[in-house]
């Protein structure tokens, strides 16, 4: 039996650079390998990995396996799996860290079943048991109404980690590491899916994930219109973006890409203004990392007031315009 050692991060690139989630995984991976006194490796697979390898070292990797192949230009499970499976078998890491992202959600379960091991998804916290050296992952369950710790003795121990749950290290370009160009033949005849087209739907303006202020509406908003008027006016005033909980997205009041929550986007702005949002755990899972949460809801018992720092109890149709107008006055003065 192979000896399982070290931690492997399955990295992601965004516009040719290391994706934010990968810097977060390297940050938490670094802490764990330092306890284990083992190595932190990072897989980067793309048509051209380029300078991202050096970036991965600067963010904490000891070894970067750079796999380049034209079939890896865009993520497709059947091509990426070949790279990830081959590398995982070659280097036998004890732990594999993957982001709970569009790619990670699609890749990680397949890889776990292919490797015959277990996977814990959407982890918020990871530590190592000093005695057994087993990973101790904590993840939410029941829509965020509880948290669970799962352990497994099957190797490698695989987890996906929620975005923004871990902190990256400070970038240090003087860190030493090894870039290992790795040739893996991707058999394109085994790629059983074809990307016919990729369509961008995101509206112009500030991206939700980058917005310092988010004005978010829930089921209580009642329809599509206020998202474009009442909420947008406030968001524009604060140079922020408009978001929503799941019901408005499910009802088609807003596009899916502004849905914040367990199955939508995870955001962590400075200010999160939750309007007519009850605060179901599955929503707060997506916004609880915000620095300051402000709630406006007509129901004083709404769960969102447990999450918020400031709140007003009242109908949003009355509260929000008064709030926006006063704020305009204050910001002008």
């Amino acid at each position, binding site marked *: 039996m192979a000896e399982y050692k070290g931690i492997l991060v399955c990295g992601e690139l965004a516009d040719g650079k290391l994706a934010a989630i990968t810097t977060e995984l390297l940050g938490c991976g670094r802490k764990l390998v330092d306890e284990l006194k083992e190595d932190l490796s990072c897989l980067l697979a793309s048509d051209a990995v380029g300078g991202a390898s050096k970036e991965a070292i600067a963010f904490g990797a000891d070894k970067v396996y750079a796999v380049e192949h034209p079939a890896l230009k865009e993520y497709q499970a059947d091509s990426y799996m070949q790279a990830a499976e081959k590398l995982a078998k070659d280097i036998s890491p004890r732990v594999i860290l993957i982001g709970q992202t569009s790619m990670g959600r699609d890749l990680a379960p397949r890889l776990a*079943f292919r490797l015959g091991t277990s996977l814990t998804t959407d982890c918020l916290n990871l530590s190592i048991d000093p005695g057994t050296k087993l990973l101790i992952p904590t993840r939410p369950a029941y829509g965020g109404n509880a948290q669970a*710790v799962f352990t497994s003795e099957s190797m490698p121990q695989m987890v996906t980690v929620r975005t923004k749950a871990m902190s990256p290290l400070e970038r240090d370009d003087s860190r030493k590491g090894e870039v290992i160009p790795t040739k893996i033949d991707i058999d394109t005849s085994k790629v059983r899916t074809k990307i016919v087209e990729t369509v961008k739907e995101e509206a112009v303006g500030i991206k939700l994930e980058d917005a310092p202020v988010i004005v978010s509406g829930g089921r209580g908003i009642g329809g599509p219109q206020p998202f474009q008027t009442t909420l947008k006016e406030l968001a524009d005033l604060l140079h922020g973006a408009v978001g929503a909980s799941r019901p408005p997205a499910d009802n088609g009041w807003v596009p899916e890409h502004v849905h914040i929550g367990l199955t939508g986007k995870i955001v962590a702005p400075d200010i999160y203004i939750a309007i007519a949002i009850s605060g179901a755990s599955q929503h707060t899972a997506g916004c609880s990392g915000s620095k300051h949460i402000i709630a406006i809801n007509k129901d004083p018992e709404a769960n969102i007031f447990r999450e918020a720092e400031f709140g007003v109890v009242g109908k949003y149709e009355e509260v929000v315009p008064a709030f926006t107008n006063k704020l305009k006055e204050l910001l002008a003065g």
Partner: protein
Amino acid sequence: MPVNMIVCCKQVPDPEAPPAVFKVVNNKMTLPPEVKPVIGQYEEFALEAALKIKDTAGGKITALSVGNNFVRDVIKKALAVGGDELILLEDGAFEEGDSWSTANALAAAIKKIGAYDIIFCGRQSSDWDAGQVGLGIAEILGIPAVTLARKVEVSDGKAKVERVIPDGYQVIEVTLPALIVVTSGIGALRYATLKGIMAAAKKQPVVWKPADIGLEPSQIGAAGRRSKLDKLFQPVKESKCEIIEGETVVEAGAKLAVRLREAKLL
């Protein structure tokens, strides 16, 4: 061309129940009796995806579930909305499974069912939220899978799938048979018609035991797990919300602006 479809469904406690009723006692989620079981929300979307294909191309929908003590009226909703057949893997030995044991059981049942064009699953169960079983089934069966589907069309032995990505969607083509993992955006599950409810009342689900699908008890349920639940808990959250009040709610709204400026938040 009629499409032969299997939809995997899970019976879960109503996830829309208010957060306050979710209580963990002795490492187990215990819910009061007023929280009724339902078919998971993402499996409802999966059912709707299959029904939409049946509407246009025709075909057959077999709903499949694994667990124990199914509430017949709840799980038979899959028939009432337009499913043709319901197969329940129902036995004490199926209880307390993880993604591995659940995928093993469902894949074995699908092998026994035999012919299919598409297997539909929801993106994640509404209780454990792991999001692994669909892809696990595809791996075990060795068939392609497309995840996060919000629209599915079938023609010429292929499915064209709109897959949600963070800033839009991709159109992905996959040759059938394939497994498709469905997310929201496909549209809410249609209501059962009176005719559908009456027809479902007359149908009995097919019940299979572990031996019926050729599995040893060690491969399923708690015994087939590859991960162990060490702890289930609820972090204590202290509410520290400062409620801004006023003579009227309009005044409260204005005072909120003043307070946030004072606190230098805005």
